[in-house]
Structures are given as structure tokens and as C-alpha cells.
């Protein structure tokens, strides 16, 4: 839970580690894997460039135009400023969802009583179309930061909690018997067996939750009040600056993808070291 906080808030540290491992992995595979990934990205950008130049639609800029718009928006500071605004509800919401979601999920997995009380709530919330509920949030909490944080939590929390719950329920029973036979205390059982064994599924939930959180924050910025990246997208669309609009969209997608990669790295480094280099 704490690691997620670091992963979202403090990018540079983990990214450095990720780079090191990536290099090692690339070296192990003779650089082949990295090459293919770069080729795939290059192919995508190439197709985008062609599609933009045809053009498919006057509202669809080419890759190069988008890249130039991105550079300009970075240079004039509008993009960094927008990110600074968007990140507030996003980081707050994701951290709250991760802490609450993982705790609730693990507790639901461990205790039948908690499962009975909490699981139906999360299941209903996961099924609900959240975009339709966001206007309701503004009725109650207005248009400030609280409402946006809540929008992020509403999207991120259920999937994190339900994954944690399923992960704990499906812990290898043979490992639990082993812990019992070597007389683990209930606390040791949770910390040394259940959490590590459940961590891949918990982290899968966190990754889904974080990407849902990105959806939540952008929805909030489009539906509640235009701020941050949502504002940039709305503004540039309204004045037909399509390259700038796409640069904003692409940048948030890129940022989301990087965050998820960092999260994956955190999982392998801290919980499942055996997967390193695999």
C-alpha cells in the first residue's frame, strides 16, 4: 500500500530501478525483446503519421504535429501546470483507494463477517456505471477537490478491494497447512504467507484500480469542473486546436502506462523477487 504511494507520487526512484532491470533483461535476451518493443512503438507512430496525413478527418492531426504541439505545451508550461492540477485528486484518490481497498479486500478474505457486510457493496459499486453517478457527487460535495477525489475512489476502490478479497480467498491451502504445521502465529500467517501469496492478484487489482483512477479523474475534470488535463482537452477542442488536444490526451495515456509499469516493477522487487529476470 505504501509502495503504491511511492510508485505514484515519486516516479524517479522506481523508474531508475526499472531501467536497470530492463537493461538486464534486454542483455539476457540479446536485446531482442527491447528491439521488438521499440519497433512496435515505431510502427504505431508511423501508422498514426500516415493516417494524420491522408487525412482521415480534419480533426485528426498527424503524429508529428501532435509531437510538436506536445513540445510547445511543455515549453510554455501549460502541460506541466495541467498535470500538477490533475495529479492532486488523482494521487489522493489512488492512495486512499489503495490503502482502503487492499485493507478491505484482505479483511474480507480473512473474515466471513467482513465479507458479508462489505462484499455486496463493492460488487454493486463495481457493476454501477460510475459516470452516471458523478453528477450526484457534485450535488453532495460541490465542485471542489473532494468531489474529484471521490470520483477517483468510486472507480478505483471496488476493483482493488474485490481483487484483494479474491486473492486472499485463493491462497494456496498447502502453504497455509505448512505454516500451521511449523506453528506460525495468526499474524505471521497473514504477513509471511497470505499477503505474499496473494500479492500478484492484489497487484493486478491495483493496476486495474490505478487505471480506473485515471478514468475517474479525467471524467471528473470533464463532467464536474474543467481543470487540469480535462480543461486542456476541452479548451483545445473548443478552439479546434486538435494537435494540442491530442497531445494532452496522449500525454495522460503515456503517464498512465508509465505508472502501471512502475507498479509492476514494485511488485516484483518487493513481493515476488523470483519473477525478476523471468
Amino acid at each position, binding site marked *: 500500500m505504501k509502495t503504491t504511494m511511492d510508485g505514484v507520487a515519486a516516479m524517479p526512484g522506481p523508474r531508475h530501478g526499472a531501467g536497470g532491470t530492463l537493461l538486464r533483461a534486454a542483455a539476457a535476451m540479446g536485446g531482442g525483446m527491447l528491439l521488438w518493443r521499440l519497433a512496435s512503438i515505431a510502427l504505431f507512430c508511423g501508422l498514426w503519421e500516415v493516417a494524420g496525413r491522408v487525412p482521415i478527418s480534419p480533426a485528426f492531426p498527424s503524429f508529428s504535429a501532435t509531437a510538436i504541439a506536445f513540445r510547445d505545451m511543455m515549453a510554455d508550461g501549460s502541460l506541466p501546470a495541467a498535470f500538477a492540477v490533475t495529479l492532486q485528486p488523482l494521487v489522493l484518490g489512488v492512495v486512499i483507494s489503495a490503502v482502503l481497498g487492499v485493507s478491505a479486500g484482505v479483511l474480507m478474505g480473512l473474515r466471513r463477517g467482513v465479507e458479508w457486510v462489505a462484499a455486496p457493496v463493492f460488487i454493486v459499486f463495481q457493476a454501477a456505471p460510475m459516470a452516471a453517478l458523478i453528477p450526484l457527487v457534485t450535488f453532495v460535495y460541490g465542485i471542489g477537490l473532494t468531489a474529484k477525489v471521490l470520483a477517483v475512489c468510486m472507480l478505483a476502490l471496488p476493483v482493488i478491494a474485490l481483487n484483494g478479497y479474491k486473492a486472499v480467498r485463493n491462497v*494456496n491451502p*498447502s*502453504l497455509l*497447512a*505448512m*505454516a*500451521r*504445521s*511449523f*506453528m*506460525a*502465529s495468526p499474524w*505471521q500467517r497473514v504477513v*509471511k*504467507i497470505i499477503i*505474499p*501469496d496473494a*500479492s500478484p492478484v492484489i497487484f493486478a487489482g491495483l493496476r486495474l484500480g490505478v487505471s480506473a483512477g485515471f478514468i475517474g479523474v479525467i471524467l471528473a475534470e470533464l463532467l464536474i469542473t474543467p481543470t487540469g488535463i480535462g480543461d486542456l482537452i476541452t479548451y483545445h477542442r473548443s478552439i479546434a486546436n486538435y494537435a494540442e488536444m491530442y497531445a494532452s490526451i496522449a500525454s495522460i495515456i503515456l503517464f498512465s502506462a508509465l505508472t502501471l509499469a512502475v507498479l509492476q516493477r514494485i511488485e516484483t522487487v518487493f*513481493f*515476488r*523477487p*523470483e519473477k525478476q529476470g523471468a
Partner: protein
Amino acid sequence: MGALHRIDPAPAAATILQRPSALDPSAGDPVVQVRGITKRYGGSVEALKDIDLDIPRGKLTTLLGPSGCGKTTLLKIIAGLLEPSSGEVRVNGREVTGPGPERAFVFQDFALMPWATVLRNAAFGLELRGVPRREREDIGRHYIREVGLAGFEERYPHELSGGMRQRVGLARALAVKAEVLLLDEPFSAVDEQTRRKFQEDLLRLVAQEKKTFLFVTHSIEEAVYLSDGIVMLSRRPGRINRIIEPAIDRSGSPDEIRRDKHYLDTVEEIWHGLRDYVD
């Protein structure tokens, strides 16, 4: 003398000692005493019925029987991992109410933590007991060497073969210095060559560690090759069919033992005994 309750008097072959424990000086001090153990599942299915058994100290005793005879159930009851429906188990005279430090279990499916190195897995029992890191890793390393895995301390279980994984499971059980080792079909998930090598190593460890080994298997050859005493269980409800002491001379090489007439006769004898009630 509880060990001798259910001896079948019929086959009086020279290879089978009918009242072996009487000849055994340690018979007066069984480390595990099983009294009237019955286990029912779901109120109706009887897995075990009225088991009385004494396990002699410092020997390797095997529970042998067809699948579904409740031998693993009995082992888990002795381990304290399962509750019997009635009856009691005593270890060193104290009643078993759950797992205890004097017993260690080796699991059929190894039960290794995939996220932990061989060393951490082997020392895990000590870790749970709060033994300081340096000390438990020294003990772990010692037993990893004992089971023939020196050099693999920093590997992860998925990098090892089935046989090697089970050696880690054995090292973990040895490291906690329990008096009684309970092994639940430890070789069933291991290929034949590895299995033989492992059996030979196990015999060396039994001689060296001077612990009590209680071993579950469905392989007659394995039971005869390894055991000082074989407890044969019949099918549902599991009952003790008879108890055999193979008394194989283990001074020769493994190949000599496997060709030994005494060994082969005992295997044959048990096979005939089993066939009688399988049919």
C-alpha cells in the same frame, strides 16, 4: 504393545517377524502412541476406524496401503493438522492438540514458498520461531548441504526439479530439530531415478540424524527398502491390517539390497497380503 493389536497371524514366513516390537529394546518407549483413532468425514464416511499404534523411537516406520485407506489422514492427525473424530494421539506421553515443535511435516506437494529462496524456505520453520537471521541461516545452510543441495541456497523453487524441491522440504523439516519427522508421500511427485537416489540419501539421514521418521507411501518396494517397520492399512474404513518388520540388511550397496532375496521375498509377501483384501 498397542502396536501389535491387529497382526494377521496367517503368513508365517521367515522374513516377517510376528512380534517384532517385543524384541526391540526401545519398544517400552514409543515416541508416538495412537489410541482408538477414528476419523469420519461429513458424519458418515469413515476414513479411519479404531487405530491403535505405537511408533518406536529412532526408527523409520511406514504407513503403507492402497489409495483411499486413510494413511495420509492418519499422518495429518498425528501432525495435529486434522482433528480425529474420536481417540487420541500422544507424543512423548503428551496429548496432541495441534502442531508442536517436536514434530515436523514434509508435504507431498512440497509446500515451498515460490517467492522465497531455497535458504529462506529451508530456514522458514526457524524464522517463524523468531530465531535470529544469522543463526537460522547457518542452520539452514547446514541442512541444505545435508540434503545435497549445497550451491542452490540462493535459487528459487521454480528453478529446481521436483526432487530438489522435496529436498528443500526435507531440509526445512530437519532444520527445526524435531524428534519426529512426518513424511506424506514425499516421493510421489518425483521421477523414478530421482526417487531411488533420494531414498538412498534418506536412509543415510535416518542413520545419521537418529530421529523418528514416519513415512506414508503406496509403494511396496519403497516401504520395504526404507523401513524398520511397516504398518499396513486396509481400505475404507482404514484399519491396521498387520505390522511387518522387514529387517533388511542395509550394509550392502543399494543395488545389492534391491537384489537381496530377503528384500524381494518381503516385497512379494506384502504384495500377496495386499492382494488378499484388494480382491
